């Protein structure tokens, strides 16, 4: 029994680690090619927040659906989107998962349950009610996750979706990636009470707060929340974490201290997972390094795929505006 548990958590731990490595390395490449001018537009990196994304997505079932945020690379990767196609998308290539039309802020793949990142803060929350509505109507064992940030919790869309989901008992799992900042704005500046979990109270909705840098803990929390949601209706999960990277391409980090960033770097979810797995004697260093190496290769291949892919033809610009 002990052994079986250990095997399970080993398997799970390595999976979570792999997810997080993929996310981290994916974004490091994006950052790199962005700085070289080979990726355009803007990108919002989630470096430091991979624990929240990995734990959340692993806690779901494969058929579950998800709406991501503008900072959604890791969310999409952990949900299982093809990293080659996603990398190509961010390079604007025709092989991209959105044919180069969406880019970093609009990564989506319906077949993988990724119903899209969104450039409009909090807009995903009402949309998530829709797929949940459909699933409930069809009596499917499907939960929809709506990711959103601490800043997004101040938008009207948050309130309307929370109210609608609770009034109609929709199977939506509202997941707040609370990194305590909206761009430069600290949560304490824009919320009188910064305990986001309390925002579930008016809707008679249960809520839980979890250490988002502990992907094991997130996984456990989401797993039982999913059980609850599919049977009873919506729930709010607040995952506390930290964005180590800047907000987007143009962030002078004037609003926070190096010390603060460094403290969170030290607690980053990948190193934490490695330490936890080692300390519990669940894995050996070699096993962990194998994941490290494997993911490096996968990401390198994704970059190569993107680089090798052509840009779309101009003619393609008219396609996909309307469905037949």
């Amino acid at each position, binding site marked *: 029994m002990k052994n079986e548990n250990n095997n399970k958590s080993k398997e799970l731990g390595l999976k979570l680690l792999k997810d997080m490595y993929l996310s981290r390395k994916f974004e490091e490449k994006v950052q790199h090619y962005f700085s070289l001018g080979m990726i355009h537009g803007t990108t919002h990196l989630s470096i430091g927040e991979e624990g929240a994304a990995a734990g959340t997505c692993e806690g779901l079932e494969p058929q579950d659906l998800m709406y991501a945020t503008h900072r959604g690379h890791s969310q999409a990767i952990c949900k299982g989107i093809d990293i080659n196609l996603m990398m190509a998308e961010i390079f604007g290539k025709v092989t991209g998962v959105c044919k180069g*039309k969406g880019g970093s802020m609009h990564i*989506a793949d*319906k077949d993988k349950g990724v119903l899209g990142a969104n450039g409009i803060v909090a807009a995903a929350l009402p949309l998530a009610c829709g797929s949940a*509505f459909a699933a409930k109507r069809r009596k499917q064992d499907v939960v929809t996750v709506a990711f959103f940030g601490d800043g997004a919790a101040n938008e009207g*869309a948050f309130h309307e979706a929370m109210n*609608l989901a609770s009034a109609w008992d929709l199977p939506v799992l509202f997941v707040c990636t609370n990194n305590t900042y909206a761009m430069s704005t600290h949560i304490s500046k824009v919320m009188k009470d910064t305990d986001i979990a309390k925002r579930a109270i008016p809707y008679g909705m249960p809520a839980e707060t979890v250490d988002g840098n502990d992907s094991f803990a997130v996984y456990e929390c989401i797993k039982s929340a999913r059980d609850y949601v599919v049977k009873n209706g919506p729930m709010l999960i607040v995952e506390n974490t930290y964005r180590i990277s800047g907000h987007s391409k143009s962030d002078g980090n004037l609003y926070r201290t190096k010390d603060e960033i460094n403290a969170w770097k030290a607690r980053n979810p990948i190193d934490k997972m490695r330490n936890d797995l080692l300390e519990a004697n669940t894995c050996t260093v070699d096993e962990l390094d194998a994941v490290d190496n494997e993911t490096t290769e996968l990401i390198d291949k994704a970059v190569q795929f993107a680089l090798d892919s052509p840009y779309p033809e101009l003619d393609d610009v008219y396609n996909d505006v309307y469905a037949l």
Partner: protein
Amino acid sequence: MPKKEITYANAIKEAISEEMIRDEEVFMMGEDIGIYRGAFGVSGDLVETFGEDRIIDTPISELGFVGCAIGAAVAGMRPIVEIMFSDFMTVCWDMIVNQAPKMRYMFGGKVSVPMVLRTASGGGTGAAAQHSQSLEAMLCHVPGLKVIVPSTPRDAKGLLKSAIRDNNPVIFLEQKLLYRTKGMIEEEEFTIPIGEADIKREGKDCTIITYGRMVQMCLAAAESLEKEGIDVEVIDLRTLLPMDTEAIIKSVIKTRHALVVHEAVKTGGIAGEIIARIADSEAFYYLDAPLKRLASEDVPVPFCPVLEKGILPDEAKIIATVKEMMA
């Protein structure tokens, strides 16, 4: 073909009802559309026929429930969503402008959003500035949407059925003052294709391009003008986006005169779009007079009936404008 008389409101209800029977995935959401029967009574007894599971009263959360409809559409359902007054589209404008019409494109064609947003549009009801607007021009500036404004019970029914079957977000702007008007429709099932204008009256001297509530007014003006020897062609656009440019150009080449009439305020109205299409077409070379438009004055809709009537186009203004053009 056997025909029957029906009101504009009931034609809409029939379309919804038929499509709900035809397709289990069709359902309707909106404020007070159930037992209240809708603010304009359009849904009638639909809730009794289809139950509260398919005719769904929502909280006053347009952003929430329109978003929910979009999400359900992406998931393969076919929501019809009702916004009580078209002015309230503004509180969920992001969903209408940035979400529904762009998702398919942004996601590389992998999703579609088969949703119909029905809403009551226009003034003349004494409901003042926040309940009387005609906002179709704003919607026509959003690629990815389709925009329909029916002027008769038959058009309303046929076009709404097409809209429900369409795989794109369609905004269906019902005309408040037409809800109780009557017209003939066939007993049998029928649809009307989206994107085709209808020549409601043929004529050879002047083309009036219009839609919605203004159609009847233009037809009445045309009758009067006929007595004065001016033979007016009245084109009812029916669908504004996509627009049936061909029908417009063809008619203007024939009549050499074009007047656009709409209820929306003039500046920034869709008349500009129509005129630009004419002015950059072969028809330009045939024109015998400046291209004219007649629309509401550029003011918020005033409450007082005297003032409200004053800002709207009417038969007399249409007649005067056409005469001026033909002079």
